[in-house]
């Protein structure tokens, strides 16, 4: 059996990034992700890699752009208000096809909000978030182990598609401490002939997201569209739990999923046949796997830490035939298993 290490979620992301070969980290302090930045300030220099504490999240995301454009695996981490500032840079990176990883340890909002965990940035992460036509691959971990594993996957997918990838845990997961099995460091990296590394023995490389003439820009955006179609086809990830006999399926991600797991056990003890569907990729959303489940049952309960953002994708996936209910919290407050159980009882009676 492999050895396990007790680790906080934010630290697991940092270590996952280092294992994945992240060569440059740029960040600005914001709660509840500070441990990640602090850990990187120690670990990156130890590894002989780049760490810069920046003057703002704007600067951080643009440093990520510079580092990634020059061929390095690069990352920033932030929490919700900082993620808003970074939308500009994310849009530029999507437009210029620059692979990078952005971690948003979500907190309560809108505005300055609070430092509790929340999932109110779901739309912002999965629907583009910045200006223009694009999406970023969005990964939602639900355990400290997954904070590490999905951080590593994020770098792989970013390089594979030359697209920004967001890791979207909530503040509760960032602070959670759980045992983690350490992974092997990544040793093979893709070539990046497009990167700006100095024009030695090749024509110059240019990285931009601009054309003077719309006639020239349109074909580039068409390529982005084709890429997103490919991502939707190839990269859907999800987990199904106790779906076989389920007469009500909970849909949840992140720490809301953890509360839902407890609620499911309580409900099954009461005789309710509950299953859980957990999207791991929020973009691409697992539309087909979820719609296939509507053959088994027509009753769904969405559990999320926001007004009702995930539920929109669930409804779009299921169409009009299904009954889709919501049990939620927001504003930085966790949802308890009891609250979810109450919703289950209400629906099942």
């Amino acid at each position, binding site marked *: 059996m492999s050895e396990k290490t007790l680790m906080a979620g934010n630290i697991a992301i940092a270590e996952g990034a280092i294992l994945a070969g992240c*060569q*440059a980290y*740029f960040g600005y302090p914001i709660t509840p992700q500070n441990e990640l930045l602090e850990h990187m300030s120690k670990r990156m220099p130890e590894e002989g890699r*780049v760490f*810069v504490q*920046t*003057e*703002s999240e*704007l*600067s*951080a995301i*643009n*440093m*990520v*752009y*510079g*580092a990634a*454009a*020059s061929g*390095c695996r*690069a990352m920033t981490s932030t929490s919700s208000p900082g993620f808003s500032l970074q939308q*500009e*840079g994310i849009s*530029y990176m999507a437009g*210029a096809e620059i692979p990078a990883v952005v971690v948003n340890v979500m907190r309560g909002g809108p505005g300055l909000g609070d430092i509790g965990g929340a999932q109110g940035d779901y739309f912002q992460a999965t629907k583009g978030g910045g200006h223009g036509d694009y999406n970023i691959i969005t990964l939602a971990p639900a355990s400290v182990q997954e904070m590490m594993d999905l951080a590593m996957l994020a770098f792989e997918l970013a390089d594979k598609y030359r697209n920004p990838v967001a890791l979207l845990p909530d503040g509760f997961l960032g602070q959670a401490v759980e045992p983690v099995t350490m992974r092997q460091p990544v040793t093979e990296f893709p070539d990046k002939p497009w990167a*700006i*590394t*100095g*024009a*030695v023995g090749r024509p*110059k*490389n*240019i*990285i*931009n*997201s*601009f054309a*003077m003439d719309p006639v020239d820009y349109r074909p580039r955006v068409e390529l982005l569209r084709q890429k997103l179609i490919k991502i939707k086809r190839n990269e859907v990830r999800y987990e199904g739990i106790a779906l076989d006999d389920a007469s009500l399926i909970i849909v949840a991600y992140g720490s809301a999923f953890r509360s839902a797991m407890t609620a499911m056990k309580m409900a099954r003890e009461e005789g309710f046949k509950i299953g859980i569907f957990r999207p791991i990729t929020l973009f691409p959303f697992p539309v087909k796997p979820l719609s296939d489940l509507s053959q088994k049952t027509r009753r769904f309960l969405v559990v999320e830490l926001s007004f009702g953002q995930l539920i929109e994708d669930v409804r779009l996936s299921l169409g009009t035939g299904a009954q889709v209910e919501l049990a939620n919290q927001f504003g930085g407050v966790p949802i308890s298993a009891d609250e979810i159980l109450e919703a289950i009882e209400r629906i099942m009676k």
Partner: protein
Amino acid sequence: MAQINNKELETLLGLRPESMEEHPFHFCPGCGHGLVFRLVAEVIDELKIKERAICVASIGCSVNSYEYFNFDGLESAHGRAPAVATAIKRCHPHLVPFTYQGDGDLAAIGTAEIVHACTRGENITTIFVNNAIYGMTGGQMAPTTLTGMYSTSTPAGRKPSLAGYPIRVCEMLSTLEGTAYVARVAVHSPASVRKAKQAIKLAFRTQLAGLGMSLVEVLSPCPTNWRVEPIKAMDWLAENMLAHYPLGEYKVIEAVAALQKEVSHA
């Protein structure tokens, strides 16, 4: 007789630096950008760093910078070029990234990025073109627009009571400990163009010697948006800009001064 193509001929005759693309400028007649691009390209040729140079372009009339240079380049978001260049230099210390920014980009939307690149003493170079106006968007007030000066967004002239004062970038940035070389030059006369080139060259040599942040502000004409003829724009610059933006070296740390002596001996 051996055939010789235009590009080779131009290089041979010193008409076109090797670091300059054979690409038409999109600038208006009499614009100063063409001069500044050429000076940068000449300096990069002379320092033999074409294979290490990275042009970090900005937003404004400088937006297409990388099209005119014959080496790697990228576009950064408005004002963020110093952050982008910082990362490139930190990740690849052997590369020679420089930002090419206008006054709106550097002195308005990008003030945080330039101030902090300077205060961190990033080993990068910034070419800052100050023409006291937003050129690309059609002549609105820039942070460097002179008091009383007409722009399309100060139709009665810039009034400090409404729109504040024109910002002096070199004076401000030279107070920061991380800057190694800060100079203001102009390109309104043959003599000033020669001096501008010396400053740009010293700025790049500062980076090559690893001495810290180097910045050259270049006062440059914008006849279209100043609404004067190209030749008169050169006089307009001398008559109106030099009083508020005095030319000269604002920061030369000792190690850079030593480099400077080598230049004058050369």
